[in-house]
């Protein structure tokens, strides 16, 4: 099959249009955050930095930002520990029930968010009889974040040269020393990439969050959801939306760079 010039041109145009389609709505939000009009009217006739100023002074927004960062950091930290342990076990050992275990890690993210959300909500409230708080939210987020760390760590461990660990043991290093000085340095960048992905995943999650956060807990996505229907709030919500996109996309960019660097070495 050899594509003719016109066929290639048509494909290029369709691809460009698809990219325009993908980026326009996000661009509209970015532009609207500087739009002087209060009701999202397009095209903007005047631009202002006023909404950015209002947003930085909104106490509710700032505390929601703090909550989101706290939840995402705690969930990623738990995910790093659990994901690394599991990846070590899965890459180094053969055992009965290995297949179900690998399915179990992916399940929280493969099933629709609403199923995960209601299952955890039901488990916390009915089964355990605990109140929904920021702690239940962190537990829920950590559960679906394990998979990102696990996947990154497993891929690295499977490509790693095991002879160095054997050499370390032969030279008299104990099991912990070998892990600290030989294994960990080799998987560290994969763990950082996994943690960054976990952070991004947790930071803007909304569906599981609405089912597992306590009444008084407001993350940034919940703040957006609570404010977007309020009259006159749209421009400030635009500002926060831009910030959320930045905070969730930047870690992805760095994680991507980390894994790309490793592959090209």
């Amino acid at each position, binding site marked *: 099959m050899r594509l003719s010039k016109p066929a290639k041109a048509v494909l290029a145009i369709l691809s460009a249009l698809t990219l325009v389609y993908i980026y326009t709505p996000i661009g509209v939000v970015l532009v609207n955050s500087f739009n002087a009009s209060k009701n999202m009217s397009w095209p903007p006739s005047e631009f202002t930095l006023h909404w950015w100023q209002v947003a930085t002074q909104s106490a509710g927004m700032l505390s929601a930002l703090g909550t989101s960062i706290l939840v995402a950091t705690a969930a990623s930290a738990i995910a790093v520990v659990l994901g690394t342990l599991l990846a070590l076990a899965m890459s180094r050992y053969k055992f009965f029930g290995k297949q179900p275990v690998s399915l179990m890690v992916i399940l929280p993210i493969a099933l629709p968010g609403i199923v995960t959300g209601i299952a955890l909500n039901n488990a916390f409230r009915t089964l355990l009889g605990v109140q929904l708080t920021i702690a239940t939210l962190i537990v829920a987020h950590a559960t679906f974040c394990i998979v990102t760390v696990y996947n990154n760590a497993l891929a690295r461990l499977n490509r790693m040269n095991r002879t160095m660990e054997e050499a370390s043991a032969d030279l008299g290093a104990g099991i912990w020393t070998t892990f600290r000085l030989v294994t960990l340095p080799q998987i560290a960048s994969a763990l950082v990439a996994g943690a960054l992905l976990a952070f991004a995943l947790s930071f*803007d999650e909304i569906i599981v969050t609405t089912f597992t956060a306590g009444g008084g807990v407001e993350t940034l996505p919940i703040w957006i959801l609570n404010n977007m229907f309020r009259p006159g709030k749209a421009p400030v919500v635009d500002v926060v939306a831009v910030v959320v996109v930045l905070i969730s996309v930047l870690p992805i960019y760095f994680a991507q760079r980390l894994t790309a660097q490793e592959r090209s070495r």
Partner: protein
Amino acid sequence: VNKSPVSATLKGTEVSAPDSFAHRVSSRLYTNTKLRLRLLIATPLLWLSLVYVAALLALFVTAFWTMDSFTGEIRAEWNLDNFVQLFTNSLYQTVTLRTLGIALMVTIADILLALPIAFFMAKVASPRMRGILVISILMPLWASYLVKAYAWRSVLSNEGILQWLLRPLGLDTPGYSLVGAALTLGYIWLPYVILPIYTGLEKVPQNILEASSDLGAKTWSTLRLIVFPMLLPAIAAGSIFAFSLTMGDYITINIVGGATQMLGNLVYTNVGTANNLPMAAAIAMIPIAIMFIYLSVIRKTGALDNL
């Protein structure tokens, strides 16, 4: 590749006395592989099974319980009342069909939109261009789902960009409606469909395509007879995301769907306002069942090995 970790080991190790406690633990672990595996896997396995699998099983069980409509307490009596409701009340049938319809429409539309750009990325673009395109599809995939839904609230609004673009053509924005929600959902899941199809196309070897044209096949016949059959598993893999994520959605519908309800909304109102967890659990079984049927149909194409 790496700075010699071996010398690092020698420098950094303080060899513990042979009979110290730390040394005994270390050598015990070194010789006992089973114990080592158990220690590694215990915590993550306990977490996943206690927090998640137990929660899923409990959800299944709860669907067979009842809420006392008088006291609002959940009663652990086994019965099929919730499921009888699901099958007899026409509300649930309408909403299930609507959700299924939207999910199928969104999935098909996304596949059609994804094919040209995926093809361009895999077979036309230069390696450098390809890298840039992959990143520019990947970034919006990770950008907040909520923000993307919210963005469409601006796009679809009466004074929004869509109205501005359509007015010269004598058309109006669909506004916050079923159509608006379908457009938004199709938009949100598009990158999830493009990437697997692109990966699938990359795996189609160039020489097979050349052989096909050398043997006299026109471009269209090659696409239909060679590329499409090889690409089917990748298309199916991409469809899983669009389909599953639409089946379980309720936030997008709230934001841009107007008064439209999908299965997710029914689950949410039963958890929140009505506080009827057993009914919510029973309703949640519908998307789960549909997903299982969908996955078992799609498994035959080999899509699950393509994820």
